[in-house]
């Protein structure tokens, strides 16, 4: 789905680039004078004025409550700050961290390159808009400084000071307890009275917030400088591209690890975990983040440099493929680290892969010959017979065979059955051969990697936190997409049995809550497996997500399929295309184009649904915040802080994806007919 822009053909992309170029010249709306703007948007009529007053007061009240909550002395944000590592990677062994950095690096290189390779990167934000941002940040800071209640007064030990309702202070005992009983143990507070927290005066609170004042004035200053430094027309026609601007802000944020004391949660000399709030982040975190930022920027710059050259198209395809493969590679190699038996690899695995590549390639070459006719089908059917026989034999144990070989035979038979759809001249036939060989390399590589012992502990034990969230989301996306396409084709097919089966599957899965499916896979799936077979908790959760998500994707894709005009079917029939050719080359591309925005919506839904993993006992992001942090002795019961933090992360993830899908929708011109 990330490749949405890549799937466009050249002409459309060119057109879009032109539209974007036109867009870039169009200025922002002229701004009304402040007084007129207020009159038009806030006080246009008497009911409107009432609404404005009411909602302003409501907003101010909510803002004050939020500030009081976030900056309250009772909040223990260091519980989140020092647990960032746990939240994101849980108990991943620290000695293996380089794997995660490398994974992140690969992802950043790929996304930076593909961002750089985009034909049009949009017109970005006008100076007017950026200036308004600075103004609003500055203003909300000023309002916030004035609104927040004064801080609690503390004594020399750092404990809050309290007073009786009449204002006389309450003393503390040596152990720090409040003395609200006299010597005989009689409460000094009357029934129903409660002690008051002592707070500093408004004036001293204002002067205590000096740094905030400075930041607010700074933001307002930049805003005014941008606003008044440019003339009205220039302010509206000067645009700063969004991606470099984002990188800039990201860089500013990342640079803070070098100068802001975010705190640190590490082991002391005795090896016990301790939290150290007032120090810089450890250099093992600081340096990789900095490097990663530079990697991202460099990848983007490289992409920008390539975009005008001839290689841009090829690079795009390569990046698309790598993006599809990255999850497997990172999972099997970087996160799993297989312990390969090299003798076996050289003696069996590689020769077998080569045999299938060459033999299969030869078969593909023969079968894509347009002149082969009926004989081709006979060969393909025979191959299918062999492939099926292998599985039957495996079931009854007639002869031993590597599972890899059985799978390869089956794939070969399927490819042979579909081969006549790709018949053509020598160049076309060679392309099929290369395609087959590439597929074999990937399949054999993955099968070899999965089937070996691993050197890092089993994923279930240390996979946790945000890593699990991301992995489940990505795997669901990759596997449920093809399944969803198949189900959608089945449901719209004219073959009644396929239609009935797909419809039953889709409707049943969509009719029941996801949590029951997740329970089914977490609790019951072990009963269904043959003797001796076992499924890791993470894997069964992944399967549950895939099967569930596929039903929803199928409905989205069905919408796209129904949007394809009947004439397209008739035209391809008139050209004499086969069913596979018509579906693969004519119908699906158009259907998927229409359904890209809802597909991104499905990805967002999956991303949010990963939070359910915590109910079935996997240690995901939510579970760390919800039960692991509050379980630590230092942060007993610190729950809402962690929850608010993960709210923020989920929000950023979903919001940016939904904005992306909106942009995509605009680019593809869906809904503008």
């Amino acid at each position, binding site marked *: 789905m990330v490749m949405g822009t890549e799937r466009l053909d050249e002409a459309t992309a060119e057109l879009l680039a032109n539209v974007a170029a036109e867009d870039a010249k169009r200025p922002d709306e002229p701004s009304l004078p402040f007084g007129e703007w207020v009159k038009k*948007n*806030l006080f*246009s009529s008497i009911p*409107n004025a009432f*609404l*404005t007053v009411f*909602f*302003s007061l*409501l*907003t101010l009240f909510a803002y004050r409550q939020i500030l009081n909550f976030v900056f309250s002395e009772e909040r223990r944000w260091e519980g989140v700050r020092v647990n960032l590592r746990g939240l994101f990677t849980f108990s991943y062994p620290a000695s293996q961290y380089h794997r995660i950095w490398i994974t992140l690096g690969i992802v950043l290189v790929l996304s930076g390159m593909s961002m750089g390779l985009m034909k049009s990167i949009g017109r970005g934000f006008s100076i007017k808009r950026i200036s308004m941002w600075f103004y609003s940040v500055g203003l909300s800071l000023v309002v916030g400084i004035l609104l927040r209640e004064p801080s609690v007064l503390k004594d020399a030990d750092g404990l809050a000071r309290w007073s009786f309702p009449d204002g006389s202070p309450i003393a503390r005992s040596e152990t720090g307890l409040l003395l609200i009983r006299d010597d005989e143990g009689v409460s000094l507070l*009357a*029934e*129903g009275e409660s002690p008051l927290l002592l707070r500093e005066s408004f004036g001293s609170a204002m002067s205590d917030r000096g740094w905030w004042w400075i930041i607010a004035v700074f933001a307002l200053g930049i805003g005014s400088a941008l606003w008044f430094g440019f003339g009205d027309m220039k302010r509206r026609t000067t645009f700063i591209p969004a991606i470099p601007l984002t990188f800039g802000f990201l860089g500013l944020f990342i640079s803070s690890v070098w100068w802001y004391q975010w705190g640190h949660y590490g082991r002391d000399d005795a090896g016990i975990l301790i939290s150290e709030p007032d120090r810089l982040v450890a250099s093992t975190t600081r340096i990789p983040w900095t490097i990663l930022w530079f990697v991202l920027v460099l990848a983007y710059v490289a992409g920008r440099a390539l975009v005008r050259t001839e290689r841009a198209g090829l690079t795009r395809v390569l990046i698309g493929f790598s993006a599809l493969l990255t999850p497997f590679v990172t999972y099997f190699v970087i996160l799993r680290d297989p312990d390969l038996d090299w003798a076996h690899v050289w003696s069996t695995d590689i020769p077998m892969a080569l045999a299938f590549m060459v033999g299969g390639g030869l078969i593909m070459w023969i079968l894509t010959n347009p002149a082969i006719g009926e004989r081709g089908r006979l060969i393909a059917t025979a191959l299918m017979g062999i492939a099926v026989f292998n599985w039957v034999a495996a079931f009854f144990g007639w002869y031993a065979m590597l599972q890899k070989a059985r799978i390869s035979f089956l794939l070969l038979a399927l490819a042979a059955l579909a081969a006549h759809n790709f018949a053509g001249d020598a160049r076309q036939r060679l392309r099929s051969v290369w395609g087959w060989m590439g597929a074999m390399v990937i399949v054999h590589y993955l099968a070899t990697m999965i089937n070996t012992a691993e050197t890092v502990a089993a994923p279930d034990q240390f996979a946790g936190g945000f890593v699990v969230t991301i992995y489940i989301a990505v795997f669901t996306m990759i596997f449920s997409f093809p399944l969803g396409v198949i189900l959608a084709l089945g449901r719209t097919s*004219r*073959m*009644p*049995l*396929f239609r*009935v*089966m797909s419809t039953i599957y889709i409707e*049943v899965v*969509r*009719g*029941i*809550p*996801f*949590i*029951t499916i997740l*329970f089914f896979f977490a*609790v*019951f799936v*072990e*009963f*269904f*497996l*043959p*003797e001796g077979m076992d499924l890791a908790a993470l894997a069964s959760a992944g399967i549950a997500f895939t099967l569930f998500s596929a039903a929803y994707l199928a409905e989205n894709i069905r919408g796209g399929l129904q949007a394809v005009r009947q004439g397209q*079917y008739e035209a391809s*029939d*008139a050209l004499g295309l086969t*069913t596979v050719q*018509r579906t693969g080359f004519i119908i699906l591309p158009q259907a998927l184009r229409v359904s890209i925005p809802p597909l991104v919506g499905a990805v967002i839904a999956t991303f*949010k649904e*990963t*939070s*359910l993993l*915590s109910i079935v006992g996997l240690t995901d992001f*939510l579970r760390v915040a*919800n039960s692991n942090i509050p379980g630590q002795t230092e942060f007993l019961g610190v*729950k*809402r802080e962690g*929850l*608010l933090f*993960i*709210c923020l992360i*989920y*929000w950023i993830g*979903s*919001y940016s994806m*939904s904005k992306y899908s909106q942009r995509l929708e605009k680019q593809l011109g869906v809904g503008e007919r």
Partner: protein
Amino acid sequence: MTDTAESSLAATAAAKPPFYRDATVVKWIVQVVTLIAVILAMIFLVGEAGDNLKAKGINTGFDFLNVNPDFSIGDGIDNAPDTGGRALWVGMVNTIRLSVAGIALATILGVLIGISRLSSNWIVAKVASAFIEYMRNIPLLVHIFLLFFTLGQLGDFGRNVDPVTGELSQGPINGWVHVSNKGLSIPRVHIADGFYQWMIFILAGAIVGRWLMNKRNAVRDATGHETYPVLNFVGVIASFGFIGWFLHPIFGWVGDAIFGPLSRAIPNVPEVALQLILSGLAVMGAALWIKRFLDNRRTPAGLAQLTDDDWFRMIFAGVSAVLASLVFLVIWPGLASWIINSSRDFFEVAADKFGDGRGNWREDWPIDAARPDIEKRGNFANVGPGGLNFSQGFAALFFGVVLYTSAFIAEIVRGGILAVPKGQTEAAQAIGLRRSTMLRRIILPQAFRVSLPPLGNQYLNLTKNTSLAIAVGYSDVVQVGQTIFNQTGRSLEVFMIWMLFYLACSLTISVVVNFFNVRLKIVER
């Protein structure tokens, strides 16, 4: 889809292809082989599950439905269910209650927020969109947890004692709204004795009102004068309700005279007759469907050629009807007696509810209201007509689900309003409609037509999302089911019950939404 091309080619060649090149035959072979493979795989998996369960010494079967489950349920119509089936029923009622109340509240909130987001007032639009973006970009489970812990941080129920009166109190509005770590409590309206008799009045009012409305509509159409038909309708119902409020005991005989005899008569219906009626209905339905299907295929030139797909549909309908009658007659004869018993029970309950003996005309109002009543420190009053109490889990779940869904509904409403072509607004302005009339008569009806199907989807989602009750320990059907399978190990059976229950809910909602959808559709010539 290829058959059009291929069959015409075959016709020109005027030669029938060999059977293995015949598209229809090949298609059917592929389909049947796939179906058999799927069925075999399922048989294999189910057999495997049976063996594994036997090896682990876990019994199977639905007998847990009749066994005392030995646990109590915190919320619901029965706190100590005496059978497993009853416990699940309590869970189902809780789910249904949550969903129905949630759908009503979420719709109201969602429509309000959706309209506010399109408001011309800058701050109203911004507040609405901030709410929407906050709610829908964060997982529901996180919302529920946040609400749950926020409630948990509040003070005890009845924590403070009024120094003057000595009454227990807990704000924010004492005696009306109480928010505490035990949940929240608000005033409620509840059905009192005499409600059902009163409903007879309301029903009569609706019939008369409807008649009057049609009449007024006809007058308006004929003369062009505004006759306020809807106002008349509402007025008639209101006046009937007002009279019935005082006169409802005169219908005290309904229970004994109508429902009592009915409940006594129903067990006399022979089961075989009901079975025959049910299977007859199934067969008749299939026959009607096939007839309509064939009628649709009929053109002035005669019956169009039927494809294999058409044949499959007709055969499928016939076979399902036969299977259904087999189920009614042979496989599950208990269904008929179950229907008979349930209808007898239903009429018994109705006879009781409509029954007489509510004597006092002055005190028995049809509807009563009650305020939250603090009897005890730190807890809700569990007995007596108190306020409407939301336990901590219920409150978190309910408001989480409602607010979350309302954000999505708001987006749907906004989309619907934006989908109304601008020409409609302009035309309405051109004929001089007021803004409010335009919204009510032109924009909203069209917007509603566009947004009804996605709205139905959201209702389905809301119903399914109530299953997150398990995270906060509220006893919905999933939570009760999980407790049962933890105790008895009957995981598959519980899963099947969940599935059937939720599918039934989904089907109900789909049918209701579809009913309105069909009514709202533009009638095309």
